[in-house]
């Protein structure tokens, strides 16, 4: 990371402290591990994106003409598995969370740095197994692994299940580390009510990771046992109940949706506050809301199963609980909006993404109300309506929040500024491309086009063409940041320690930070987001 153009001799930081491959692969520095994760998940993001593009191209015409039916099934399966387990779940927690949580609470590292490294290695082992599975043809179960399809028919199930099992442990260890870190590593004065909302969000996420992931792990193990040994567990031919699998699977996989979105909410809270120069409106409610989402999120899993053959009364209970979890999400949207009121708003790239996030998350959330309504769910579940809904949350919400965060903290991570013009341009392209891709899918869904269809009825074509067109625009939008962020690492303007004038602790240390983040353990005497009396001047920072 040489910086030839630097006017002053560079201060030692986490990037230039040591060089060489070993200093990276054996590092226990949370910031370096975050970068290892950044590289790995970016790789998988483009793999998953490539699959998505192939899917969209196949759906350009009603006939199945680009790829074979089997190939298509493998494409959407691998797209789901790669994007969910290898990109979305680790995206914000393992990259931004890893980098920032210790800094934001004034700690020198996570509580268990070696466990943190182990977690990345587990991710990589899972990744290697997943790549092997992909190269040997890929699984074709759908990312949901529904039995008995997965235990009797599909191919490559064991590899995919094993890889997700392993990567699940990586996720558990990250969560465990965050929980203990937030509890035990806070700097003096950093009380719970002074924690930035990004930390709250990662803490809530960690709770879900720790409590949910093991259930997925055992479920996949049981699927593997059933497949290998023909041990009857879920297969009705062996006396089992396939709905038991769905209960166990969604017990994790619904909360997993919140693993994916909560950290994104944290990112947006930071950004909206910073670029409005205002304390987040209703801080306490915002913090409570993320915890409420984490807890209530566990109570709603069977809303994925309203037509699966569960009892009517169970359906009623789960529908009701699903509406409860919508409340804290609504609270968050209202509070972000209110934060802008009477602010001093600048339209920097991260803020543009944040605007996009609030809008798209609102739409994703509102369509969730459609799906939680039992009578309507019957018609739209397992159609493109669902596909559109969760892409509004996962892509319109999480990916956009992730990009927002990467831009916001890029000066801190790399010590360089990215080119603002290109940043704004990419944000706009992504916003347009995203909506063009996924909005038509809502309409398709209500018209009745089922998901996971390789060929479809001709009357669905116009909307599918629109969607594919949007996907190509979206692809351009994703490639742009990749290019200019790489460019900026060498040619970008040198960033000072606080280019945005933000107030978090992470902005009170150098950019990039030193190995232990702070020269002196900070003592916190101010509330979070105190833009009225920015605490900057009070903290001694060694020059």
């Amino acid at each position, binding site marked *: 990371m040489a910086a030839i153009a630097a006017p002053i001799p560079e201060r030692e930081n986490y990037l230039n402290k040591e060089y060489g491959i070993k200093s990276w692969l054996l590092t226990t520095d949370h910031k370096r591990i975050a970068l290892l994760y950044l590289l790995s998940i970016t790789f998988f993001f483009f793999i998953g994106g490539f699959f998505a593009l192939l899917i969209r191209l196949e759906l350009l015409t009603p006939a199945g003409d680009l790829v074979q039916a089997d190939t298509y099934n493998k494409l959407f399966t691998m797209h789901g598995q790669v994007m969910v387990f290898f990109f979305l779940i680790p995206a914000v927690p393992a990259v931004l969370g890893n980098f920032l949580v210790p800094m934001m609470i004034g700690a020198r590292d996570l509580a268990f740095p070696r466990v943190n490294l182990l977690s990345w290695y587990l991710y990589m082992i899972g990744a290697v197994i997943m790549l092997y599975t992909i190269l040997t043809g890929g699984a074709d179960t759908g990312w949901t692994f529904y039995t008995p399809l997965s235990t009797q028919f599909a191919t490559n199930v064991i590899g995919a299940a094993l890889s997700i099992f392993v990567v699940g442990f990586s996720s558990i260890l990250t969560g465990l580390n965050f929980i203990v870190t937030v*509890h035990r590593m806070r700097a003096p004065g950093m009380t719970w009510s002074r924690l930035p909302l990004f930390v709250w969000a990662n803490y809530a996420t960690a709770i879900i990771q720790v409590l949910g992931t093991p259930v997925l792990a055992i479920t996949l193990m049981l699927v593997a046992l059933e497949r290998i040994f023909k041990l009857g567990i879920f297969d009705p031919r062996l006396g089992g109940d396939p709905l038991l699998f769905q209960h166990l699977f969604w017990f994790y996989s619904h909360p997993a949706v919140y693993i994916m979105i909560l950290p994104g909410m944290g990112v947006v809270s930071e950004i909206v506050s910073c670029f409005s120069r205002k304390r987040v409106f209703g801080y306490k409610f915002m913090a409570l809301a993320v915890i409420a989402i984490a807890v209530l999120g*566990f109570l709603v899993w069977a809303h994925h199963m309203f037509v699966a053959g569960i009892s009517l009364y169970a359906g009623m209970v*789960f529908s009701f609980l699903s509406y409860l979890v919508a409340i804290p999400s609504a609270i968050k949207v209202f509070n972000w909006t209110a934060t802008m009121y009477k602010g001093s708003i600048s339209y920097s790239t991260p803020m543009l993404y944040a605007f996009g996030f609030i809008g798209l998350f609102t739409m994703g959330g509102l369509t969730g109300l459609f799906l939680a309504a039992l009578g309507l769910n019957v018609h739209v579940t397992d159609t493109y309506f669902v596909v559109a809904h969760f892409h509004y949350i996962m892509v319109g919400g999480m990916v956009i929040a992730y990009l927002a965060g990467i831009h916001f903290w890029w000066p801190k991570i790399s010590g360089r500024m990215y080119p603002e013009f290109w940043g704004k341009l990419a944000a706009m392209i992504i916003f347009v491309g995203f909506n063009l891709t996924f909005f038509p899918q809502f309409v398709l869904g209500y018209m009745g086009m089922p998901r996971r269809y390789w060929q479809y009825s001709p009357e669905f074509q116009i909307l599918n063409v629109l969607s594919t067109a949007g996907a190509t625009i979206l692809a351009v939008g994703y490639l742009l940041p990749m290019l200019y962020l790489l460019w900026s690492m060498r040619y970008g303007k040198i960033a000072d320690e606080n280019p945005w004038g933000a107030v978090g602790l992470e902005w009170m240390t150098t950019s990039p930070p030193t190995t232990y983040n702070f020269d002196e353990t900070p003592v916190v005497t101010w509330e979070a987001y105190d833009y009225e009396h920015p605490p900057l001047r009070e903290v001694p920072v060694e020059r």
Partner: protein
Amino acid sequence: MAHQVVSSKTYVGIWAALICLTVLTAAASRIELGPFNIVLALLIATAKASLVVLIFMGVKYISQKMTVVVLVAGLFWLGVLLVLGFTDYASRTLN
């Protein structure tokens, strides 16, 4: 250190209690109580588990209140899985 060293007498006493409860549950399973067999067995198991958690694992003596919260949270979530999952099976009919 935040730790209180527990006397060996306590440990041995708890161990004896655990053995007694094991014998008790084994004996109780030989008596016909209808559906209450399993209820009794689970009650005894819970009693044993509580002894292990409180004394052997030291939750009773621990200074960190957080540990208790963590433990209770784990059990709560297990309860959520069991209870909410069971609502489906308990109320299933072929409409």
